[in-house]
């Protein structure tokens, strides 16, 4: 019997892929010289006012629609007040009691089948700047430096319902959510650079019982850290409760080096953010027309796309999920089919050869020399028996290294398969004539020797004979022709 059940909710921050910041025209460049992408607005100069970037709002709406949220006709920006050097105005412009969107969900695969995970809200806010504490960045023992390039870049915060029950489910949720924001072209999904950041709220309870006290774990910038932090936190809380102690509501920080979470601040030390409506910005009004325009521009999302592959192409869960990992990959897969490949073969080639080759050569799919059209043509040549499967691998390798068209490579390397029945019959006769002893053995009932004779036909054809036809014709010759 399960003695404890974990209850997990994630707060995910996704940096929106806009050219300029949320409330000013500064560029949103990653890795630029410190404090080079700043202006009076994002530096919080006196008298400078925020003006919303409509593209950021549209991207946020894309994600909200893709997760089935209700977009509110009117949402309100609010000031979240606290002092910190990375926050130039002394408040962050965010949304509070009237967020952009609420009430969505996404589906994840769990051990017990697919499950809907609720999304409570999605709101738009500006990012803070960055503090540099290490010497390589120029800081010293008693001074830190501030880089405000990131200050004011647009984020969305996506808050899940506490519907997740294990670290695997948390990872599955984050995986799917990351795919969705990337499918929407709303976020590049880069966790290392902090484009996608995640905090986890974790509590444990007796199955079906009242919710336990939760802790919030911050600084989870990879799937692995999320998994480890959640597992650590679940175990820590269970151990506390089993010892008869209590879980303290607090914010904790994950330390990847030690694999532990540590208390950062208690509930009593929590900031009082004193949210109130941002008077410098009118309510954000979103009309029905722009919602439908944005909805029409959305691509098919990974969940439905994978389901379609299972339904239409009879792929299994694992293959269909692999293929929808990114929109580029799924598009590549579908274009391979459009170029003449069967779905099954296309799936195998894409997930094995294509991904393998990209990984090995460390190239992005978009830069890979073998286009979906080239792959599709290659596979279709196999499927119409123009070349063998083995030859197809050679063609693929050649294209991956030097490019070129599959037909031209087949021609150049002489890889075309021999399917001419008369030509194969002529070879079969030569093989029969040259291997009288083995033929005799076959005819006397040692049918096992047939494989050897087929091998001789293949050898004689320099491997180009269509094996199926060779088999068939050799049998015909052996059975019907004069002894």
């Amino acid at each position: 019997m399960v003695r404890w059940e974990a209850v997990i909710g994630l707060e995910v921050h996704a940096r929106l892929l806009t050219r300029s910041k949320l409330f000013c025209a500064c560029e949103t460049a990653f890795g630029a010289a410190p404090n080079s992408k700043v202006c009076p607005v994002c530096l919080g100069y006196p008298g400078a006012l925020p003006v919303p970037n409509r593209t950021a709002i549209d991207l946020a709406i894309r994600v909200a629609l893709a997760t089935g949220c209700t977009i509110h006709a009117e949402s309100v920006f609010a000031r979240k007040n606290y002092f910190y050097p990375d926050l130039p105005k002394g408040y962050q412009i965010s949304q509070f009691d009237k967020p952009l969107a609420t009430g969505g969900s996404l589906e994840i695969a769990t051990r017990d089948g697919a499950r809907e995970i609720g999304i409570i809200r999605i709101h738009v806010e500006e990012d803070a700047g960055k503090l540099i504490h290490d010497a390589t960045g120029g800081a010293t023992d008693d001074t830190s430096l501030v880089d405000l390039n990131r200050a004011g870049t647009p984020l969305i915060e996506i808050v899940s319902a506490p519907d997740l029950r294990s670290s695997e489910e948390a990872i599955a949720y984050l995986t799917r959510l990351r795919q969705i924001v990337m499918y929407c072209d709303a976020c590049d999904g880069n966790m290392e650079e902090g484009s996608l950041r995640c905090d986890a709220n974790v509590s444990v309870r007796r199955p079906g019982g009242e919710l336990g006290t939760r802790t919030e774990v911050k600084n989870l910038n990879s799937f692995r850290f999320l998994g480890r932090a959640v597992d650590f936190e679940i175990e820590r809380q269970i151990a506390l409760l089993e010892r008869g102690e209590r879980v303290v509501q607090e914010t904790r920080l994950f330390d990847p080096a030690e694999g532990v979470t540590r208390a950062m601040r208690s509930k009593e030390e929590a900031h009082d953010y004193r949210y109130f409506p941002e008077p410098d910005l009118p309510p954000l009004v979103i009309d029905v027309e722009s919602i439908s325009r944005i909805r029409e521009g959305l691509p098919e999302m990974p969940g439905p796309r994978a389901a379609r592959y299972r339904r239409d192409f009879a792929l299994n869960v694992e293959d269909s999920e692999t293929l929808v990992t990114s929109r580029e990959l799924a598009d590549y897969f579908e274009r391979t089919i459009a170029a003449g490949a069967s779905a099954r073969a296309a799936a195998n080639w894409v997930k094995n050869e294509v991904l393998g080759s990209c990984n090995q050569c460390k190239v992005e799919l978009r830069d890979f020399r073998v286009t979906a059209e080239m792959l599709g043509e290659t596979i279709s040549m196999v499927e119409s028996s123009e070349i063998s499967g083995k030859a197809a691998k050679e063609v693929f390798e050649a294209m991956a290294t030097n490019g070129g068209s599959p037909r031209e490579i087949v021609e150049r390397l002489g890889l075309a398969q021999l399917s001419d029945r008369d030509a194969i019959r002529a070879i079969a006769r030569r093989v029969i004539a040259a291997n009288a002893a083995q033929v005799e053995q076959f005819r006397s009932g040692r049918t096992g020797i047939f494989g050897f004779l087929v091998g001789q036909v293949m050898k004689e054809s320099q491997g180009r004979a269509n094996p199926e036809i060779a088999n068939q014709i050799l049998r015909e010759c052996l059975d019907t022709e004069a002894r």
Partner: protein
Amino acid sequence: MSDTGPVGARSAASISRDVRRGTLALRTLGGDVIDAVEKRNDELRAFVHFDAGEARAACDASHAEGALAGVPIAVKDNIATRGTLTTCASRILSSYRSPNDATVIERLAAAGAWVAGKTNLDEFAMGSSTEHSAFGPTSNPWDPTRVPGGSSGGSAAAVAAGLVPVALGSDTGGSVRQPAAFCGVTGLKPTWGRVSRSGLVAFASSLDQIGIFARSARDCARVLGVIAGHDPRDATTSIEPVPDYESALEGGIAGLSVGIVEGTWETLDDEMRVCFERSLTILRDLGVTVTHVALPSLGLSIAVYYIIANAEASANLARFDGIRYGRRAEGDHTLREGYVRSRTEGFGDEVKRRIMLGTFALSSGYYDEYYGRAQHARAMITAELRAAFGGVDLIAMPTTPTVAFRKGEKLADPLSMYLSDVYTAPANLAGIPAISVPAALSSEGLPIGLQLLGPHFAEPLLLRAAAAFESSLGVPVMVPPR
């Protein structure tokens, strides 16, 4: 207004006309303004930053075309002007130079006007007397022992003393209209969203509006026509087209209905009450029907105003941390010490008081009781005013409960200082336009103002009524004794 006195004592309309015609040289004009300011400013302290060289350069750089060709303008020192100081009369910004001009400054320059200098104010516009200035108080040109009002006291004094024809101020709870009344000039607070706040250092963003001081409704109209209109740098500016305010001045106000609010003026001292009643008589003589309107929640205005204004101020002033600009406490210190010391040393007592009050009003556990209820009451006041304007064209009220008080009189008693905004705060809470026009002189020879309020974007009507009222008083309206 005479065309022969010092240039600053003439109207903006006549100066720009003569500059465009070429009968008034910029050089002469500039010299005249500089002389006048240098002669009077030590005594008045209307300007806190006045540099003859800068003023001369600004005048020379202005052009002889446009609606305000050659017109010198005094600018409250919480409005950003590039290259010169913008201090908000605060120690924390005592050496701050803005990297850019406020939108209003750009528009004035495009119309040919030039900035003569920056005027005194209560620190960050928080006050009603211009005594809360890091640079010392401004004197009322009518009586130097008295305050000019505030917070835009420097601008009001500069116009009243004839140093410049027009000036910009900001009005959050009456900071243009009250000093206009105390100094005997016309003060207009436009509709919230009518004039860009970009470059105005924020006190309370949902209430702040840049306003205009002038010695006539016509000059107010001239300047408003230049600075009003949508600004891509201020998301709260309206896209409502800007009408021709000057042509709206013509035609008189016969047939107009003006509402008065019971309980707002009957209890004033005799002189203020009699003056208000006399103003109503003048309006009636101009053909106006005066009726009563009910605004039951108006009495909440001061309480509501000080909660909302201070709450917003507590956030707006958080940026002054000594890190990126402005004064930073000297020496090595931790982050927390840096915040505490820079802000402790940089802000004056009134600013600190308001930041603390505002922070409290937004705090967890007190929010609903203070900020939440104030927002609710603000909505009620706004709705009542909207309803009232369904029945009348304009509403008339005194601008202030008293004439200009003596320096130091209310410094020790913040509450009584706050109460001097009783008639002006409602227009800010509702975001509607209002104007104060000189109405009379008290027995002590001090100016008294009449305030008119209109519905959103009713500036043309307000200005027409102000022009009609002013003409019935005779010209010149008011010139302080020298």
